Every structure is written in structure tokens, then in C-alpha cells.
């Protein structure tokens, strides 16, 4: 296989997110890049990965990246399809899905998410789509991996609206709120990877993509970012990963 062109930062983000699904049994997928990453993972790392979409399709095997989470191919290829009430009551709520891949418009230092409004709720500067399934998915699934573009607009000191609780105000908050899952375990961006500190639950930069500096990540983050003492550098995409991703997106 001939060495493909250099990977873009978006491609690296998707590939790094996909690697997170090696050895994972089932993943709940939001629309967009999380979907691309999960399909890539099932093709490259984890053929047995169970893809679960909010639309009720469990064990879907899409060959193309669906535009919506309810494309026909998802139902045609699913192991089974359930109603929306069943999806949330019997499958997501009880924590039967291991990992959730979610996006968001705003992320704070405790990996709480905003997908509701920018600005004041009553008089928003930008009205966003709203909660969807995210709050209960983030509460119920075994762990949450957030996939978001790294910019000061997204990684903010203070959310305009708490749509989805990550680690709340810090240690013990999830337990206090009665959540079952472990909550966010990673935030994968186009610059690197943040993980919550085991003790403080505050997001720490633990990994940067090839050629990205910690300073660059700090500049793209709206709060004073903690940097891991041993900052890992992302393993560059393999030819297989990059080839598979480009082939997938081109389908």
C-alpha cells in the first residue's frame, strides 16, 4: 500500500477517536464525526463492535457514513430495531451500552456539555439543537468519549447552559446525582486528547497530535489548562487507518 498523503488534523482526530473503541463491546453514536470514528473502528480495530444509534437501530453495520442517525441502511443492517421509548428505557438507562461517543458546542473543564444555547436562554445569541438523548446517554452509558473541535469557542471557562453533566463540579458529583456510568473518560480533539484527573476530575491534556505543542492547545482552550507531566504524542495514523478512513468518507 503506497504511503498516503499526510493526514489532516480532522483525520487524526477521527482516527484517534476510533482507536478508543478497540476492545469495546458496544458504542452509542451521536451524528457526525463520532459516527465516522465508530464505523472506522468497526472496520479497522473491532469487527465485533456493536454500533447503537439513537434512532433505535442496534448492531447497525453501515458501509457509508450516514447523513442522519436514521438512514435506512442503519435499520436494514441492524441486529434489531427498537422504538425510542424502548431504546432509552431498556437499553440506555440501565447502562447496557458500554461507551458513548458524543459531540457538543461547548465543553468545560469538568467535561460538562452545552448543546442548547449560546448566550442567555431567553434571548440566545445562537439557538442550538437542544439536549436530544445526550443527558441520559451520558448518565447511563458505561463511559463517555467526547469528540469536539478544539477552539476557545468550544472549550470554555463557563458553559452558557449545562445540557449534559460530565463530572459536574468535580469528584463525587456523579455519584451524588445517582448516575450509573463512569462519565467522560476522554475528550478527543483535532489537537490532542484530554482526560479527567482521577482525583480532581478536571480535564488534563495527556496527549497531543504529531506536531502540536502544549502551548497551541492552551491557546485553543478557554481556561488555564492542566498539562500532564508526561505528555504523550499521538501515534501517527497508519497507512491502513488513513486509507480506510478516506475510503469510508469517499463511499
Amino acid at each position, binding site marked *: 500500500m503506497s504511503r498516503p498523503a499526510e493526514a489532516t488534523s480532522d483525520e487524526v482526530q477521527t482516527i484517534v477517536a476510533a482507536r478508543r473503541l478497540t476492545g469495546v463491546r458496544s458504542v452509542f453514536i451521536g451524528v457526525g464525526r463520532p459516527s465516522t470514528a465508530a464505523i472506522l473502528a468497526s472496520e479497522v480495530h473491532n469487527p465485533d463492535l456493536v454500533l447503537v444509534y439513537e434512532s433505535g437501530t442496534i448492531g447497525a453495520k453501515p458501509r457509508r457514513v450516514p447523513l442522519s442517525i*436514521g438512514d435506512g441502511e442503519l*435499520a436494514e443492517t441492524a441486529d434489531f430495531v427498537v422504538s425510542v421509548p424502548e431504546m432509552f*428505557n431498556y437499553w440506555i438507562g440501565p447502562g447496557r451500552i458500554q461507551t458513548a461517543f458524543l459531540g457538543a458546542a461547548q465543553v468545560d473543564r469538568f467535561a460538562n456539555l452545552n448543546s442548547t444555547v449560546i448566550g442567555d436562554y431567553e434571548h440566545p445569541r445562537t439557538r442550538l*439543537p437542544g*439536549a436530544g438523548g445526550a443527558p441520559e446517554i451520558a448518565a447511563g452509558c458505561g463511559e463517555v468519549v467526547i469528540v469536539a473541535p478544539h477552539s476557545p469557542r468550544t472549550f470554555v471557562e463557563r458553559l452558557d447552559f449545562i445540557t449534559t453533566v460530565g463530572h459536574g463540579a468535580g469528584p463525587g458529583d456523579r455519584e451524588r446525582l445517582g448516575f450509573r456510568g463512569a462519565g467522560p473518560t476522554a475528550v478527543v480533539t483535532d489537537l490532542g486528547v484530554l482526560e479527567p484527573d482521577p482525583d480532581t476530575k478536571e480535564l488534563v491534556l495527556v496527549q497531543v497530535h504529531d506536531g502540536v505543542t502544549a502551548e497551541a492547545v492552551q491557546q485553543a482552550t478557554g481556561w488555564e489548562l492542566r498539562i500532564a507531566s508526561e505528555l504523550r504524542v499521538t501515534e501517527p495514523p497508519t497507512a491502513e487507518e488513513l486509507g480506510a478512513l478516506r475510503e469510508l468518507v469517499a463511499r
Partner: protein
Amino acid sequence: MAELVSLAEGVTTLVHDGDAVALEGFTHLIPFAAGHEILRQGRTELELVRMTPDILYDQMVGAGAARKLVFSYAGNPGVGSLHRLRDAVEHAWPRPLELEEHSHAGMANRYAAGAAHLPFGVLRGYVGTDLAARTTIAPITCPFTGEQLTAVPALNPDVAIVHAQEADRAGNVQLWGIPGVQKEAVLAATRSLVTVERIVDALEPRPGGVVLPTWAIDAVAHVPGGSLPSYAHGITERDNAFYRAWDAISRDRTTFTAWMDDNIMNGATA
């Protein structure tokens, strides 16, 4: 027993100004044709209910037919914002739009409670979010364990409208593919209208088939292609190109209005 009616008759009889109307469909089987007929008939002051408002509700809100929106996720899936809906919320154009906002789990349980004719549903949810203070929920305590959970009020729209693949001549309906929350919406609503791709002599049971018996429906209208640009699994294809094109059409008020006039308001009644 469901009557077989034309789409125009069905909307005239079942949908009134000021009604809470649920045109349901979770990406799949969205009843576009019925929504357009509601606009052509000039219904107004509607409370639009749907878990996932997309282009159809963007059109209805942009046309000024809605007073209020009850929902959990309002977006153009995979494309981006609903610009007409944003314009209504951000700039009150063409009129202010009241929002009643929930999570998917909350809306699904509200419909399920409505279908069971129970006054509320119970789930673990909303706690710790800013949504809790902005919506219609209440804490409820388990009488056995003392655990505090969240109650959501039942959702019982005045009218539910859904699209399905087929009905028989007696008005029994079957849909398949992604079932969403349509069965709950129809059973929760006071009145219901189902548009179908085709009328058949007898319903053949199918994998994943959801049957709505004629005695649980008010009217069935034969509207082939009635869910386009959404799709009817196995019969029509989702028009992803249109979902993408809508972004440009809907960004600008004038472009939007002109498009609606040309394509919906002056379109032929189904």
C-alpha cells in the same frame, strides 16, 4: 374505525387552529405532505410537538403557523441548524415562538405515559442540568427504596399525524423500519391521521412491522411519497441532497418565503 379520506379532507376535519399537533417521525416516515397541507389550509396558532423537529417544522415555524414548539432536538440532522427556527427563537421572526424543551428520554416517556393514559412517566434524568429549571418536570420519590427520580407529564396531543408504508381498505395500518415513537404518538393523541404510501387488500405481517388497528385511528389518507424528502423504508429513498440544499434555502427570509410560495403554498393539494 378509520375513514379513508383525501389528505385535504383529513386535515380539514382533524386539525384545528390552536391545536397541539404532533407530526411524528424519527428521521424516518416524517409526514411532510400532511404538514404542507396544514400550511396550505392556513392553520394557525399551532402547538407543534415532536421529539426531533427538522425541515418540516422549520417550514411550519418559518411560515408563522406555530405559537409553541414542544421538542427535544431541533436540527437538520447531519447538516446543521434549522435557520427558520433559530430566526423565530433569536429574532421572533415571523413571530415569537414559545419553547417547551425536554430530553429524548423525557419526551419518549411523556408519549408512553400518554399512550397508556397515565398522567405521568418516571425516569432517571434531568438532574444536574440547566434544563431541569426550564421545563415541565417534577421530582418523585420511590415509595419502596426512597430513591428520588424524575416525573414527566404525559403528552396527549390534540392530533397526531404519522406516515406509514401501507393500509388495508378497512384502515388498518402497518409501518416498518425505524419505528420511532409513532405508535405512542397516535395512541396518546385525541385524534389521529395516518398518510400511507399505498392501500393494499391485506396487511402482510413483516419483520419489525408495527400495526395500528383501524379502530385506534380516525382517518387514513393515501399519499404516495408523503414523507419525502424523508423516506418510507423499502419504498422511497431519503433525499439527502434536499436536506443539504435546505440549509441555503432557509438561511435567508426572502429566499425561504419565495421557495415556500413556489413549492408549498401554491403547490397542488395532494
